[in-house]
């Protein structure tokens, strides 16, 4: 772990055990729970606006599901998320992340849909180039592809616009049921629709259809080539407990295509130093704005007095006070465990309880002594690309099936990256990192994960062996992170990519759940900013940014008045004692 210490020291993090008096005397305007990328983005925006920010992170290392770490021997890699597919350009610019050290080892990475016979389809941001590689499979699909590409990008642009905004709030439908509120709801929906104006009538209809339809239906309507459909559908189901024919997955495809990296869309990039580099840059940007990030500081409870948030209590028992608290950990944990059921009304609690959060995505990180041969590419000519194993829609559906019943398919779908092709900093001994996202791995494996890890790894290696001969012989180390492991090691509840399944009932103004949206917690002064909020998972930084904007809009009531009111009401001795050695953050504005 010496490496981690190095990173942390480098970016100015304090890994020491919390120092009571030091923390006690600090005064903060905002406490951010969790140093995941969204928490840090939120912190950085708030710090930039002059708020005194403290980020408290449970783990020793910041980053959550976005971090670089040792994956075997002393080879490092992106342990969980491994590709940047749309860290919002505005976030990068506003927070000056390049200035704080974010560099790309590769940008505009192509996607290779692996074909058993080596007739791979290669996706890039140039649709005519893509069409060339489709031609050997089907001339008519090749002809249709550029139009499809253009249309999906156009739709994704609308989604992208929504992603960057706080969605409206459906109070009438989900909270009050009152007529006035229902008409306000209708207006909010209408506003969402305003973006539609750029579409032709035909496209409008198609767009609405995509909202509820499945990626499988969309692709079956568009193409014949199985490999092409499989590869495109992969994006629709990535990170979701859904098959290619599950409703809502067409939207999943659009979401993945919203990403822009360095001006290209859809963009895919590798940060230099692994995904942890994003976190390092974010952390520096927070620290440079006089924010603090404290690791090994798990929040046990969100403190509420007199109906509003006043701070947090750490697992160590230390209490830290601030008039605003924003949580970068998932909404279900935040609300059910940290805030507590008693602070939510029934309707809300059932909605939160109704968030499904059992991930089906695992991460297999392998260390190879050398690059395997990939069918269809000359050795030494393997492109730095994102490789997809998803040969057809049926194949994906079959892979999905067993996961519904607590099993896994011996033929999983996979996304493979070799970051060491571009980034030598990850290995000291010229080893290669093979970073693999695998679906579908149920959170609750019926027979338990303990006895089935080897079978599982073996089936992944076998399937990959179809495309990469002799792969098994090159593996010298690695780790499997099944959803249960992701939960344990990254505090990622259910090991869920999105902090809650982004099905149709949990999108936009219904995200994280119907009746709770707009980054607002149910108690005054409490906010949510994680992937569990709109627009969902992935390293986008948008939930963090939107939440910060929302928080900056709200008037902050200084803590002192609330707390003295509370005392007058309860005559609480304990509060008085706590007050003696704490100075409160006054509102910054």
């Amino acid at each position, binding site marked *: 772990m010496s490496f981690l210490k190095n990173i942390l020291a480098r970016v100015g993090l304090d890994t020491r055990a919390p120092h009571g008096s030091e923390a006690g005397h600090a005064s903060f305007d905002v406490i951010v729970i969790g140093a995941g990328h969204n928490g840090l983005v939120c912190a950085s925006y708030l710090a930039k606006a002059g708020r005194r920010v403290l980020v408290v992170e449970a783990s020793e290392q910041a980053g959550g599901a976005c971090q670089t770490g040792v994956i075997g021997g002393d080879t490092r890699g992106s342990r969980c998320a491994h590709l940047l597919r749309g860290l919002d350009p505005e976030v990068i610019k506003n927070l000056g992340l390049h200035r704080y050290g974010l560099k790309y080892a590769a940008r505009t990475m192509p996607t290779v849909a692996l074909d058993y016979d080596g007739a791979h389809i290669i996706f890039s941001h140039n649709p005519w180039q893509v069409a060339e590689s489709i031609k050997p499979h089907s001339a008519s699909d090749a002809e249709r592809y550029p139009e499809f590409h253009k249309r999906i990008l156009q739709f994704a642009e609308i989604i992208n616009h929504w992603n960057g905004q706080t969605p409206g709030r459906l109070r009438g439908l989900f909270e009050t049921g009152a007529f006035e509120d229902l008409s306000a709801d209708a207006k909010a929906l209408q506003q969402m629709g305003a973006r539609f104006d750029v579409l032709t009538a035909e496209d409008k209809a198609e767009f609405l259809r995509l909202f509820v339809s499945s990626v499988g239906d969309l692709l079956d309507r568009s193409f014949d080539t199985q490999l092409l459909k499989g590869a495109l559908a992969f994006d629709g189901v990535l990170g979701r407990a859904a098959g290619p024919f599950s409703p809502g997955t067409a939207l999943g495809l659009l979401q993945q295509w919203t990403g822009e990296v360095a001006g290209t869309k859809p963009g895919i990039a590798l940060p230099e130093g692994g995904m942890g580099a994003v976190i390092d840059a974010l952390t520096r940007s927070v620290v440079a704005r006089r924010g603090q990030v404290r690791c090994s500081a798990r929040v046990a409870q969100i403190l509420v007095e007199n109906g509003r948030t006043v701070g947090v209590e750490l697992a160590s028992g230390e209490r830290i006070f601030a008039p605003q608290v924003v949580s970068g950990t998932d909404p279900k944990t935040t609300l059910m465990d940290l805030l507590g059921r008693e602070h939510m*009304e029934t309707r809300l609690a059932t909605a939160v309880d109704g968030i499904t959060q059992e991930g089906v995505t695992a991460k297999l990180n392998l260390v190879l002594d050398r690059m395997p041969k990939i069918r269809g590419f000359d050795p030494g000519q393997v492109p730095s690309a994102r490789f997809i194993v998803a040969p057809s829609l049926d194949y994906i559906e079959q892979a999905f099936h067993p996961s519904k019943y607590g099993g896994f398919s011996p033929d999983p779908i996979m996304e493979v990256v070799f970051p060491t092709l571009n980034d030598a900093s990850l290995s000291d001994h010229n080893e290669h990192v093979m970073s693999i996202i695998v679906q579908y791995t149920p959170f609750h494996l019926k027979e338990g994960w303990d006895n089935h890890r080897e079978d599982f790894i073996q089936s992944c290696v076998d399937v990959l062996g179809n495309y990469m001969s002799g792969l098994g012989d090159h593996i010298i180390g690695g780790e499997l992170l099944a959803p249960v492991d992701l939960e344990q090691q990254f505090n990622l509840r259910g090991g869920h990519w999105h902090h809650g399944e982004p099905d149709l009932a949990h999108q936009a103004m219904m995200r994280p759940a119907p009746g709770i949206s707009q980054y607002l917690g149910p108690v005054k002064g409490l906010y949510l900013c994680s992937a569990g909020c709109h627009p969902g998972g992935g390293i986008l930084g948008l939930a963090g940014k939107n939440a910060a904007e929302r928080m900056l809009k709200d008037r902050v009531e200084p803590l002192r008045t609330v707390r003295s009111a509370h005392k007058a009401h*309860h005559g609480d001795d304990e509060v008085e004692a706590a007050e003696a050695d704490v100075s409160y953050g006054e509102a910054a504005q």
Partner: protein
Amino acid sequence: MMDKASAKALEELPVSTRPADPLRVLPTPLHMKTSIACQANDWTSWAGYTVPNLCTSLEREMSALTRHAAMADLSPMGKYAVSGDDAARFLDHLLVANIADLNTGDVILTPMCQSNGRVINLVSVARLGATSWWLTCDGRHMNWLYQAAVGFDVTLVDYSDVHAGIMLAGPEVSRVLTAADLGDCTDIVLRGARRISWDGIDITLVHRGVGQVPGLSIWCAGSEAAIVWNRLMDGGADCGLEAVGRMACETLRIESGEPAPGRDFIPDPEALRSDRSRTAIELGFDHLIDEGKGVFNGRAALLEERANGSVLRLAMFSFQGAAPQAGTQLHKKQGRKDIIVGVATSTTSAPHRASARGLGFVVTDHVRPGDVLDVTIEETRELLQVTRKESCMVVEISG
């Protein structure tokens, strides 16, 4: 006399299942008993069960209720046992009243609201022990209780269709209890609740006074209900105890000013138009709302209503002539205009009173206690539909 036989017959009654067919109306566990008492053979259906509407005549039943003692079948009521370490916290969350403040043996009638402050139902809550509670209400809410219990360590048991209930009310109830060997429980006629074993039968006694009339309800397993009924009947033989039907109970309820679901208010989940249901404050339960209690369903909305004032309030009316139909609107002259300022939701022409009574709502801005409002009554007289103008007085406005 026929304890054993009737108990056996009752065992064969399908009391443990809700009607599978919505059109099928079930007998209650007391059906054998009530059908003997229901001399008028006038029945009504209540929550999927038949109960007597009138046993003899309203005059005779009201006289039993107000001068002696009366018994009625409450079996169709919803009945829930709540227990567990979080039971008090859970109920505090679920209900408007301050539940944790209740001591063992205490009873309270409290609204149960949605988050918008609108009432789902009124619930009688009795604390039977440190972590054990008995809830009854006129309606079924297991699904809602179940949802509300998410995240709390509680056990919910629905006794609605397996337990029977008996109402015992009237000035002579204490004497009936003593005669039936329940002399230690006479305190419950005035307040409190208790679970006891009565000669081998577990019964729960809960105070339930209606207006000026003292009384209680007794709950027990359906299979033993007939025995309980007989013991009470035998005990009360010398106290003028009579079985009464729903109509008498309703009359008493309306006169005492207690609103009822489906009659005075639409339980919120059933209201298609959100303004047709009523908030806890509108129903007259403002006094139960405690700002210091923390979050409960409806808290924010009710505090807002308390601060801004309510548009409507529950009111009691006295009618000059016969009682108008439920749902009749009440008017007032304002300048040249005739404006609607209220509605009578349930009415009764109490035979023992000079004037008919009613419950309903008035617009708080326009109506004060003592005001006289106009009522247009439509009725059929000798096969002819006639309309008359009458007046009604606002006797009382809640809160």
